[in-house]
């Protein structure tokens, strides 16, 4: 698949979804700072092209597993903006009833097995979903999003091995955003992450994770291979986290771990900016783009109003859902 194959309609659609995620995340940053959220949030700002470009190829019967930075993956695959925001607010109307919060947003009806609080926790789950898709004789696939930091968990190597042996329909999407919490990737990660697949006979490649067209093309190819029995792929999406590891991190860190100048420099190639330029290049009018943006803005505004006005869970709900 080539990035050139994307129609301008598809590009605009993906831009709209990225814009939606950005809107949600920017609002979450604001309400977090205002003390309106019960727990911490890890924002996806600057990485939106990855979730959107990958999920553009997936149906509700395909599975994804995500990370602690999981709002973007959720919103790329499910339309339930209100329920997701309400979950982050800890309300009864949240998609998990307020039990999971930011690090566990999940919409199983849409093939989202959830964000995950354990770094690397999604890798084996997705391998299991891929095994299930395979043994049930479907053409469905499983995608796991994980960070560059998670690439240092041994489970990645165990999953690569077993996925190669069993030709599992598994796509491993590493989001290399330059940092593993407060450590620069190179200080804790040796070699190239994409190349970690090679010894297992699994195709691996680096991708410009900020260009949604590149993500779309690389993911499309990997997903098609997985659907047709060709097995797993490891994609290393090169991106950059524009916000902190976690919101309000400056309040507890004794010193900074990256410069503001670095962040500003990386902002020049941030995914929405690149997608906007691509849209303009494809001849999409400013009017058409503005219309999409306005629609998304309104939907996100409504979702936050809904969440903030939603009731808290009943205390007794704490004791439900341990067993089926």
């Amino acid at each position, binding site marked *: 698949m080539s990035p050139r194959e994307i129609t301008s309609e598809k590009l605009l659609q993906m831009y709209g979804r990225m814009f939606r995620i950005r809107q949600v995340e920017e609002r979450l940053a604001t309400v977090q700072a205002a003390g309106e959220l019960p727990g911490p949030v890890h924002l996806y700002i600057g990485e939106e092209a990855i979730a959107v470009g990958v999920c553009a190829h997936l149906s509700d019967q395909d599975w994804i597993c995500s990370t602690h930075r999981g709002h973007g993956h959720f919103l790329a695959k499910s339309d339930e903006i209100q329920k997701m925001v309400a979950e982050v607010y800890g309300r009864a109307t949240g998609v998990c009833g307020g*039990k999971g919060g930011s690090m566990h947003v999940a919409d199983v009806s849409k093939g989202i097995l959830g964000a995950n609080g354990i770094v690397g*926790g999604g890798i084996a789950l997705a391998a299991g979903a891929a095994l299930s898709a395979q043994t049930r004789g479907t053409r469905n696939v499983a995608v796991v999003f994980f960070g560059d930091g998670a690439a240092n968990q041994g489970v990645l190597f165990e999953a690569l091995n077993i996925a190669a042996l069993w030709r599992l329909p598994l796509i491993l999407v590493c989001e290399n955003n330059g940092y593993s919490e407060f450590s620069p990737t190179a200080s804790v990660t040796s070699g190239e992450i994409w190349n970690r697949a090679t010894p297992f006979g699994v195709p691996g490649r680096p991708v410009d994770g900020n260009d949604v067209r590149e993500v779309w093309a690389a993911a499309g190819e990997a997903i098609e291979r997985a659907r047709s029995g060709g097995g797993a792929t490891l994609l290393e999406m090169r991106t950059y986290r524009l916000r902190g590891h976690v919101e309000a991190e400056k309040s507890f860190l004794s010193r900074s771990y990256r410069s503001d100048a670095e962040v500003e420099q990386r902002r020049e190639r941030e995914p929405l900016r690149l997608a906007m330029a691509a849209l303009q290049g494809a001849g999409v009018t400013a009017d058409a783009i503005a219309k999409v943006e306005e629609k998304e803005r309104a939907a996100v505004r409504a979702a936050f109003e809904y969440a903030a006005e939603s009731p808290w869970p009943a205390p007794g709900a704490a004791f439900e859902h341990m067993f089926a």
Partner: protein
Amino acid sequence: MAKKRMVQAINEAITEEMERDGSIIVLGEDVHISPVGDTRGLIERFGAARVRNTPISESVMSGMAVGAAATGSRVICHLFYGNFIYTGFDAIANQAAKLRYMLGGQVKLPILYMAMIGGGRSVAAQHSDSMHPMLMNLGGIKIVMPASPGDAKGLVKAALRDDNPVFLLQAAGRGGELGEVPDGDYTIPLGKAEEKRVGDDVTVVAIGSMVKPALKACDELAARGISVSLIDPRTVVPMDYDAILASVARTGRLVVVDEARKSCSAASEIAATVAERGFHLLKAPIGRVAVEDVAMPYSPVLEKAVIPDAARIVDAVLKIAVSRGVAQ
């Protein structure tokens, strides 16, 4: 004596011990920046050879701690949130807890594993467990759960001079709490409880994070004319059963408070041991205040319903005190 914060007391203990003992090394994720604050300044002071910022690889970290400790280093392995003990659990359960035993006593394993445990901050189920009972069940692991900065400093120093794997489990989110810390070098022996309040009506044993609400409960109960003997075991392995039984011998009544899930909790173990060794001392059934057998929820409303607080401790005490005529 000076007032210091919990993280500061732990940081001081580690710094002083690393100064004293050149064989101590530190392994952990982001220990150089120390988001928790307890390893702050160590890399500047002792260098990157002794203070190792690790990748997110708990299984190799916890296992390297065993290998390094068996071969001459004294290791601090910082696991950050207690739930990441699980990702590093194989080496803890299969190696650290039993290697010395399996080898007929040929090795010593001086390791201090550190982690923050418990809920109350809306970080949900994968960042809120209190897993000390699971570690207690392993056998070959000591477990330190300080409830004040002064205790923390003395216990960490003792742990860093111990030749066995020790876990330091801090109550998460409570690193900023202040308390008196004695000046100079001191240790608190592992296995020595402290009676935080002296009383005659009911014994309350509170573990780690639960000492604070238990102190509040003592005040409320005192206002109702019930005097509580509040025991803080400080270490759950070894457990100071002599201190607990001596208190129960005076009061005849026991309530145990633990932030772990109730089944097989530290509270269960204490209750069982007191029933076994002190049945004749008891005038009422033993009460347990713990988390019901659910995971920690995210929403603050739900967390509040799950985590024991002073009100629940007061209720549990009244239940065994009122029914037996201690209070009216």
